[in-house]
């Protein structure tokens, strides 16, 4: 406290010191500072200094608090900006957890043209490393005044290393997520594909985008790869077996296109879906080829005799006919200037099971006529055959329904001509016929029986469903589906051969064959649908092109392969359909 000491001693001496000041200096001082109390002035100055320093420290303190509250905000934002170029997508798994689609990191090359010193040199060096880059376009891009341009997306690590060695200023890399499909063409139509920005543009990939991923990406949160994976209903092994057999059939019968579908009748899940020709989602350019569309959802077809199952179920369910009813199929049915013939003409009175197994057009047409046009229309609408079927897949097709639906339409639609539906739609309908009468919308996502029951709609009586199972099984024992009766799995099914329309007329040689199998027929669990477009006759098929000679054996091979995978235990020495299924219906 020395200052206090000096104060105490100097204060009395101050007037003396002031007086001792030479007069010239006093004048100067008065001129400069005015004649005020210097003590008061000094105190004011100190006060000002305290205030200024106080303010500075307060600002520093406030800033410190701000830093403490938002730690590292600066760094994290920069980190996100470095990776968030292409959206991270959730993995897509099959029903057993096998990977169908996943993300890997791939470097992408970009440039900041404003920072580039010598455009020509940079162009020359880059085209040397990446020969597939167009030199003129590259020069234009580098010469532009923009802040950021992509040069090439998804380069290999080796290329990255080489470009890094070039040491070009203003050229850099960003790690991007790249979608890979390890099974290439195996699940193509089902899973769809993504564009270069990792946005889904087809199949389930597009569905994923529509369900939250887009919003997540806009919020800048979709960079984490820990998103919950999406589990599909498809079983990769079943899918492979189906595709393998379809490829075999396609080469054997020289078809234009082939398609197959395996569906769980009790939950509506699609366990496998193949449409050939397909494409590799890793190179999605092929997907634009119109030949490679997914025929099961985006194509509509006249499915032929498969529809007879619906017609007969309609009449049985309404109680208008029983299994013992008989219909006259002795002569072709004349309707106006048309006459309806039978392919396997029996020329006698047929019972309902005979109509089904001989696939009698005349018989089914008579049944439909007996029910009436309005009832027929109402029933098909109830079975979901007249409206567009929407699933998770973005691609869907509207059925081609006749605008004016008269009796002639009912006659032809009864045996599957004159109404074109997507095959997936028909699968949904047949599922309802055999699963106890529940119409369950098909799904590509995993679904439990409970969830399926919540969505299900009772469309026909359980007894009618039981009778349909009997008819289907009978067809495999005595009718056109004998070649699909794989021993041990109690298969039932309905064939369909429809003549294709060529130049406005039904062709006799170009046919579209379908076969719908259910297994096991006494308590169905799965439906297998096979469709072959324009199969050729072979010596082995004795010159026939009907479904029983190509689609049915294909289905048999498929069933023999997939039934063990689906966990269906083979049973032998089962009684025939009359005893096993029909006995439960009749009191």
């Amino acid at each position, binding site marked *: *406290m020395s200052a*206090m000491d000096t104060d105490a001693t100097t204060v009395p001496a101050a007037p003396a010191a002031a007086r001792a000041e030479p007069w010239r200096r006093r004048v100067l001082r008065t001129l400069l500072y005015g004649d005020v109390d210097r003590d008061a002035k000094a105190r004011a100055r100190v006060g000002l200094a305290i205030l200024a320093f106080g303010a500075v420290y307060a600002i520093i303190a406030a800033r410190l608090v701000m830093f403490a509250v938002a730690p*590292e905000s600066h*760094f994290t934002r920069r980190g996100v900006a470095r990776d968030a170029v292409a959206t991270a997508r959730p993995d897509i798994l099959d029903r057993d957890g*096998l*990977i169908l689609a*996943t*993300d*890997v*990191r791939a470097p992408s090359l970009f440039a900041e043209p404003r920072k580039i010193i010598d455009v020509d040199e940079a162009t020359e060096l880059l085209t040397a490393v990446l020969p597939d880059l167009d030199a003129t376009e590259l020069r234009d891009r580098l010469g532009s005044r923009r802040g950021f341009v992509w040069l090439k997306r998804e380069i290999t690590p080796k290329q990255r290393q080489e470009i890094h060695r070039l040491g070009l200023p203003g050229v850099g890399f960003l*790690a991007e997520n790249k979608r*890979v499909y*390890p*099974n*290439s063409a*195996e699940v193509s139509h089902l899973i769809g594909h993504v564009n270069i920005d990792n946005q889904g543009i087809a199949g389930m990939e597009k569905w994923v985008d529509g369900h939250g991923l887009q919003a997540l990406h806009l919020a800048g949160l979709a960079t984490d*790869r820990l998103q919950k994976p999406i589990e599909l209903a498809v079983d*990769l*092994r079943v899918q*492979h*077996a189906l*595709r*393998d057999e379809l490829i075999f059939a396609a080469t054997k019968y020289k078809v234009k296109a082939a398609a197959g579908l395996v569906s769980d009748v009790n939950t509506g899940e699609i366990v496998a879906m193949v449409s050939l020709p397909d494409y590799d989602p890793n190179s999605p350019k092929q997907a634009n080829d119109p030949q490679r569309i997914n025929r099961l959802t985006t194509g509509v077809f006249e499915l032929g005799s498969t529809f007879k199952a619906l017609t007969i179920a309609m009449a049985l369910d309404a109680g208008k006919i029983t299994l013992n009813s008989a219909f006259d199929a002795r002569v072709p049915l004349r309707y106006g200037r048309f006459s309806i013939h039978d392919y396997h003409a029996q020329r006698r009175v047929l019972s309902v099971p005979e109509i089904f197994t001989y696939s009698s057009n005349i018989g089914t047409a008579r049944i439909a006529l007996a029910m009436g046009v309005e009832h027929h229309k109402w029933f098909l609408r109830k079975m979901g055959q007249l409206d567009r079927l929407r699933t998770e897949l973005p691609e869907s097709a509207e059925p081609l329904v006749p605008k004016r639906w008269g009796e002639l339409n009912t006659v032809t639609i009864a045996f599957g001509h004159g109404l074109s539906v997507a095959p997936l739609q028909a699968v949904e309908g047949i599922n309802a016929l055999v699963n106890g009468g529940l119409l369950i919308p098909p799904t590509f996502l995993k679904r439990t029986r409970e969830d399926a029951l919540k969505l299900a709609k009772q469309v026909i009586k359980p007894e009618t469903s039981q009778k349909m199972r009997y008819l289907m099984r009978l067809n495999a024992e005595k009718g056109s589906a004998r070649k699909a009766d*794989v*021993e*041990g*799995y109690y298969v039932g099914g309905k064939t369909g051969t429809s003549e294709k329309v060529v130049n406005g007329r039904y062709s006799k040689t170009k046919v579209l064959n379908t076969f719908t199998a259910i297994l096991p027929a006494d308590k169905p669990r799965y439906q297998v649908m096979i469709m072959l477009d324009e199969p050729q006759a072979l010596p082995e098929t004795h010159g026939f092109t009907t479904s029983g000679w190509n689609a049915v054996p294909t289905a048999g091979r498929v069933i*023999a*392969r997939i*039934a*063990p995978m689906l966990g269906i*235990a*083979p049973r032998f020495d089962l009684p025939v359909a009359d005893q096993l299924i029909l006995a439960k219906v009749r009191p």
Partner: protein
Amino acid sequence: MRMFFRILNVCVVVSLIVAAAYVYEIKFESTLRAERVAKMRADIRRERDAIAALRAEWATLDNPARLQGLARRHLSLRPAEVTQYDTLDRLPERPPVIVQPPPVDAIAAIISSPDFTPMTGSVASQTERR
């Protein structure tokens, strides 16, 4: 009073120095830890990317079409027939364990019998000579 202020002043100066040193220490530590966290985050990210790449590769190698091709080329296996499947409860009973009788060694039996005295023809024993 003056003495008190002097001591207080010294205390304040000392505590200021200590506080400054302590704050520096904390600051240094936290920077270090923040760096470690950032490094670990980068490591985790890299590991995850590596795992993703490996999983993708595994899935590619595990693809049924590829396995089928390899199996056809290198193995003599065929797809299982329907008759080759069966349930566990239809397995026959385990066959009874057949106990083999111990092998009979005639010579060993003679050697181990109590009334066996070794006799050789070449050298007579001492006792017999007497």
